[in-house]
Every structure is written in C-alpha cells, then in structure tokens.
C-alpha cells in the first residue's frame, strides 16, 4: 500500500529556534498516526505546514504520491486535508451552521447545510443543533462543531491537535469510537497529543518528536506508557515526592458561593461549597469553560461576592479586593500567564511588583522601592531556576515554562496561607511542570492550604489529597483522591454531555 501522506526532511526555523529540523514520516490510508512530543517539540508547527498555514523553509511533502505544497489552508482543504484546532477556530457570536459554512469552500445554502449538519452529527454520534450560537456551547460541543465542519468535507486526512484536553473521560471514549469508525472508512487521522495512555489506546503508529527532530517511531500498542514517556522527554522522569503529612485546621471555607457571569458567554458559579485544611491540596478538575476562571476570580478577589460566601479562618472575606486579600495571605496565580498573571511588556522586576508590593513591602506611602523589587525578582529567579538573562528582561521574552515558574514562584515565596492556582503546568515542558508540582506540594507541606484548578487529570491525581470537579459552574463534593478511578472522575465531571456512541454501519 502506498502512503497517503509522505513528509520528507521538512524544516522550519524561527528566530532563535528551529521548530522542525528535517522531519520525515509517512501516514497510511486508514491509519491513526500519533505525533507525540512535549510542549515545544514542534508538533503544532509541523501540522500547520501540512495544513498550509505555515510554509516550510525546506523539505517536501507528497499526498497520494503527488507533490503537495499547500499555499494556504484552502488549498489543503481542496486536497482533502482537514484540521481540528486545539484552540478552536470558532466564532462565538455566530451560530453552528455559520461556523461550519466558514470552514467550507462552497457551502450549500443555510437550510440545506443545517440538514446536512444534523445528518452527519447523528451518523457519528455527535448531536448538534445547527441554529445554536457557538458562544453558548460547552467546550465538548464546540469541538463537535469543529469535527463536523471537517467531516462535511469528506476528508482523506484529518488532523486533530490535542483533541481530548477539553473532554471528560467518557467523552474521550466516544470520540475514539468516532475516530475508529472514520479510520475504518479509510480516513487517515494524524493525532497530536502528549497523553500517553490515549495514544496507546487509539493509535496504530507513532512518530515521536523532541526539540523539533524525529527521535523515534514505534507501534504505541507494543510500548508501555513509561517507555513512551522516556522517548518523548529523553530522560527518566522523577515523580514528585509526596510526604505524608498531618492536616491542620480549616483555612478556607466556601459556603454557597454563587456568581453571575462577567461576560456575555461566561459561566455563572452556582452554590459552591468546600473546605480546605492547612497542609491540604484540593484538586479541582473539569472541562474547560465550566467556571474555572470564574472560581479563581472569586477566590483571588478579582470578582467580589457576598462576604460570608468565603471565609478565611472563619472571617468573611468574599467582598474583599485582591490587595486586601493579599494582606491576609490569600494569593492566586491565574491560568493566562501573559496578560493576566503577568504583563507581557513589563520587566520581571515590574512583574514581581505586580502582586508582591504589599507582602514584600515594596512600596512606602505609595512610593516604589525599586531596588527591593529587583532583589525580590532575583530571588524568585534563583529559587525557582527561571532561565532568563536577568530581572530586567520583559516577561514575554521568557518561554512558557520559565514564565510559569516565575509566576508560581512569585506567589509561593510570599508565604501564602491559601494559594489558588489555575492550570499551573498548562503548555509547560515536563521538567518545569515537575518542578512546579513539587513546589506546590512543598508549600502544602509547610502548612498552607492549596487549591489547584486544572484540566490535566493526571496532574490532579498526582498532587491532590482530595478531588472535586466543576461542571457548568457547579462543584461536586470533594472526595479523597486516593483510589479514584478515571471512570468515577469522568462521572464527576458530568460524564458524556449528551453524546452517544457512533453508529456508522460498515
């Protein structure tokens, strides 16, 4: 059998980094082919070249034996290549049918298109109402829009970029059924992920990328997850150490916290209650867009609530702004590093000042103590091994992992009694992620209460004492993390949001 897609010596360099260095591999028709690699290994650049979004510096591709040089996505789509993006290429204010139409070359009139969307969505077990506004859909439903947009074009090669990061375990199972059916029909699937178990469960072949180069290829079904991890990272990973520790008294207590949405397509928080003790890590899971940002905002003070909805050592604090909360050692690190946790164009010294002015005494009567701010920034850089030429560097010049270490380090070094973090290792390389998780565990060991909001279930199971899940702004009752199965977690996250198993015949 001839390969559907052949990639030979594909190279793409950006200033300061070679994103892809002579990458070669083949994809067979009907094959589910994994592209495995850490964040920053060059997976996204590679598929963007196949989809015509980025032009390679050198190398060549062939599709069905013919030279393939898509100048733009339109050309790639015309050749039967479709892509589901990690950060969806959707338009919130438009409805499902309009979103689908935008991804097609010559869409049929709206009513016909709506009928076809219904038809395809039912065939593949992805129910979807064409008239709904995308902004009102859940993350899983949004992914269905993307997938259906691809399926309507009858693709020969379907590229999926980290598709399961927005799904519950049950939804992942159903998605895999759909993908297997597609593969059985002869569609090749290029599946990008860094989640090893998924790749072992789904894929027929794997190409492993590290720092832009192909380092290995294998049949993932014949390898263990540990072996795959070693190929991906290039070294054995140390799991964070978790000392057994005694829990102290209750530090923070949420009692019926509700919050209206801040933006037209935001999620409201509904009646959230839990307690976290000193020395405890509470892990909060859930699919993206189920109230994670809102919960962090309510805890950090960016959004205010009823005073009694949040209590610190019994004292109501729900009405306090971020700075008064910092004064009483309630600290937070939001998900978005650039533009929320840190100001991209400001130096690390200025970014240290951003949250540490109060607890580190960096301002006297409103006048800033720059030398002290600089010293604090340098302390973070040193303690957390942040790789940067110096504290005078702009935040946006740092890699994701280094900036995240700086952001977490900035809060940890201020000795919080309660630290709330959202997606602490999102888009961060494995070494930095391990360091950050260790820092959070050490902080808890020193007697702080830690709340980790994350969409990475492995991470949550690794570091939390108790686990709860957010689903449409509601939080389940926390349960001990020890012994929880993926199945149970999936049900806590809401199971399969009205999805059904694909029922394609043949």
């Amino acid at each position, binding site marked *: 059998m001839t390969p559907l897609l052949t990639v030979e010596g594909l190279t793409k360099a950006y200033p300061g980094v070679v994103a892809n260095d002579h990458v070669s591999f083949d994809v067979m028709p009907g094959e589910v082919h994994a592209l495995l690699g850490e964040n920053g290994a060059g997976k996204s650049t590679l598929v*963007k070249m196949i989809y015509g979004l980025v032009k390679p510096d050198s190398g060549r591709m062939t599709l069905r034996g013919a030279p393939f040089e898509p100048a733009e996505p339109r050309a790639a789509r015309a050749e039967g290549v479709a892509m589901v993006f990690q950060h969806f290429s959707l*338009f919130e*204010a438009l409805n499902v049918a309009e979103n689908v139409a*935008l991804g097609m070359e010559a869409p049929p009139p709206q009513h016909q298109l709506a009928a076809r969307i219904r038809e395809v969505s039912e065939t593949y077990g992805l129910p979807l109402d064409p008239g709904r506004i995308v902004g009102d859909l859940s993350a899983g439903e949004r992914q269905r829009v993307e997938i259906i947009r691809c399926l309507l074009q009858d693709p020969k090669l379907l590229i999926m970029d980290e598709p399961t990061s927005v799904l519950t375990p049950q939804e992942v199972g159903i998605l895999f059924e759909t993908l297997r059916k597609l593969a059985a029909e002869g569609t090749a699937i290029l599946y990008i992920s860094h989640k090893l178990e998924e790749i072992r469960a789904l894929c027929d072949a794997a190409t492993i990328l590290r720092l832009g180069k192909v380092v290995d290829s294998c049949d993932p079904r014949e390898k263990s997850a540990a072996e795959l991890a070693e190929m991906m990272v290039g070294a054995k990973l140390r799991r964070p150490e978790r000392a057994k520790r005694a829990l102290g008294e209750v530090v923070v207590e949420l009692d019926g916290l509700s919050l209206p949405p801040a933006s037209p397509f935001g999620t409201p928080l509904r009646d959230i209650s839990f307690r976290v003790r000193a020395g405890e890590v509470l892990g909060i899971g859930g699919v993206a867009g189920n109230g994670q940002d809102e919960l962090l905002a309510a805890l950090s003070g960016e959004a205010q609530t009823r005073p009694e909805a949040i209590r610190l050592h019994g004292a109501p604090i729900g009405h306090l702004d971020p700075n008064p909360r910092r004064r009483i050692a309630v600290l937070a690190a939001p998900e978005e590093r650039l533009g929320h946790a840190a100001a991209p164009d400001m130096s690390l010294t200025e970014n240290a000042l951003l949250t540490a002015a109060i607890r580190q005494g960096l301002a006297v009567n409103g006048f800033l103590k720059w030398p002290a701010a600089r010293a604090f920034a340098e302390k973070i850089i040193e303690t957390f091994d942040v790789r940067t030429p110096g504290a005078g560097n702009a935040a946006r010049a740092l890699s994701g992992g280094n900036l995240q270490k700086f952001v977490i380090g900035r809060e940890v070094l201020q000795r919080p009694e309660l630290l709330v973090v959202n997606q602490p290792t999102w888009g961060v390389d494995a070494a930095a992620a391990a360091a950050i998780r260790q820092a959070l565990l050490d902080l808890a060991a020193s007697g702080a209460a830690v709340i980790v909001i994350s969409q990475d279930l492995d991470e949550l199971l690794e570091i939390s004492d108790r686990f709860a899940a957010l689903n449409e702004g509601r939080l389940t009752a926390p349960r001990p993390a020890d012994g929880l199965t993926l199945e149970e977690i999936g049900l806590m996250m809401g199971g399969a949001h009205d999805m059904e198993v694909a029922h394609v015949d043949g």
Partner: protein
Amino acid sequence: MDLSAINPVLLVASLMVAATPILLAAIGELVVEKSGVLNLGVEGMMITGAVCGFVVAVETGSPALGFVCAALGGAALALLFGLLTQYLMSNQVATGLGLTLFGLGLSALIGQSYVGIKAPATPRLEIPLLSDLPVLGRIVFSHDLMVYLSLALVAGVWMLLKYSRAGLILRAVGENHEAAHALGYKVIRIRLTAIAFGGACAGLGGAYLSLVRVPQWTEGMTAGAGWIALAIVVFASWRAWRVLLGAYLFGGITVLQLNLQAAGAAIPVEVLSMSPYLITILVLVVMSAGRARAALNAPASLGRVFHASN
C-alpha cells in the same frame, strides 16, 4: 415665537437631507467596525470628501463627478489609515485621531481658494406623478439621487451582512481574527477592503454636506458630523436598520433646532446649537446603560491589533 412658521412637510423632507451625510458616514463605519477595525478618523475622511467633492464639482461643473471624487478621496485617506493600522500595526485610536487632524489640515489647504464660491446644483430627482403627490410626494419622492443612494446602501449593507457569504466572512473576521486566519481567510485584505469602503462612504457624506446641504465650502464645515456618525454606530448596536433610525432621529433634531432658531424661539441660540451634541451624549448613555445586550452584537475583535505570528 411663531411655531406656525415651521412647516411639518418641509421639516420631514429636510430631515432626510440633514440626516444623509451622517447616514452615509455611519453605514460605512458600521462595515468597518463589523470587520473588527475602529476607525476614529471619520471626521477627517468626511471633510476630505467634502473638499474633494466641492473642488471637483466646481472645476468640472458636474456634481456627479464631484461625488465620485469625494468617495475616492475618502477611500484614499482611509487606506492611509489601513496602511498604518494593518501593516504597521499602529494603535487604531491614535491613528484615527491622527487621521482626523490630518484630514482637517489637508482639506483646509486644498479648499483655501474655494471659500465663498457656490457649488453647481445637484438636481432633484423629479419622478413623474409620484413627486406630485400631496405631502408624500414632497417628503419621499422629490430628493436628489444621493438620498436614495444612501437608503439603498443601508439596504445593501443589511443584506450583505445578513445573507451573503462575503458578509459572513466579514463578520467572522471582526469576531475572531485569529480563527479566521487559521481557516485561511486573508484578514488584512478583508479589513482593508472594509476600511476603503468606510472611507468612500464618509467621503460621500462629506460631499453631500458641501454640495447639497450647505452648499458651500468652509473650513471645518463637518463640525463633528463624523463623530456623531461614530456615536450612531454605537447607538445602532452595529445593526444597519438602526443606523438609519439613528441618523434620521439625529437629522430630525438638527432640523428642528434650526427651525426653532429661525422661528425665533425663546431658547438661546447657543443652547439650540449645542443640543445635537448633548442629545448624542444622552443617547450614548442610554445605549451603554443597557450594554449587556448590545455587547453581544459588538464585534469581539474591535480595535485589536492583528499580527499573524505563524
């Protein structure tokens, strides 16, 4: 005061004339903003259109040619804005302000030897029978072509945005330029087209002032009409028909206050002539107070700089 001096039929007819410049500029700006670009230079493009249209009409004796050149002049100035904001990624607010200041200077320079000249008359469209109808004929069927063109533009923009694929792509670009780019749409090219269209409309609006409404050239004659057009887009919460409503409401206020001035109302002249601006502020306040609903229709990428990194 003699209110009987105000003829309601003439009032409505002149309302349409008074509203047309703002309507033209606002419908153009609506398209620009729907594509995700905030061009605050409407005033500058209008006044440039006013002077271009006036000079060409005087020199050639043809108002039609004047209008064409006004549209071209406005579009040219708009493309300058497009070049700066889309290719050189300058701040849209600052560049729009700059465009206004630049346009005011440019128009003053071009028009300096045309002050005090009268423009050739733009013919009214006399439609047999219809124009002779009582009341309705005077109000609806005896205007110049530009009034009808402006109405057709509103209908055209409405249809474009609601029903056409081009309109869908335009809205998509204004909603989320990164996603549009990822799907392979040429964000910058689409926005430049919208910007040029907006400039042409503003130019037409300006020329309507200098060729029909006034009709003379004086420095700074737009007197804030461009800014009011911007306000009307907000008032309309980015809907074509509501732009029409807003412009005609505003035209009504303008005409009424002028009529009251002429009728010698007991209200001081200054209060009357500041009333359009005060009412614009009032309308903005009312609209923004109920913002949650309007925000749904505001393009999400409005005013944000787009740079395709990879």
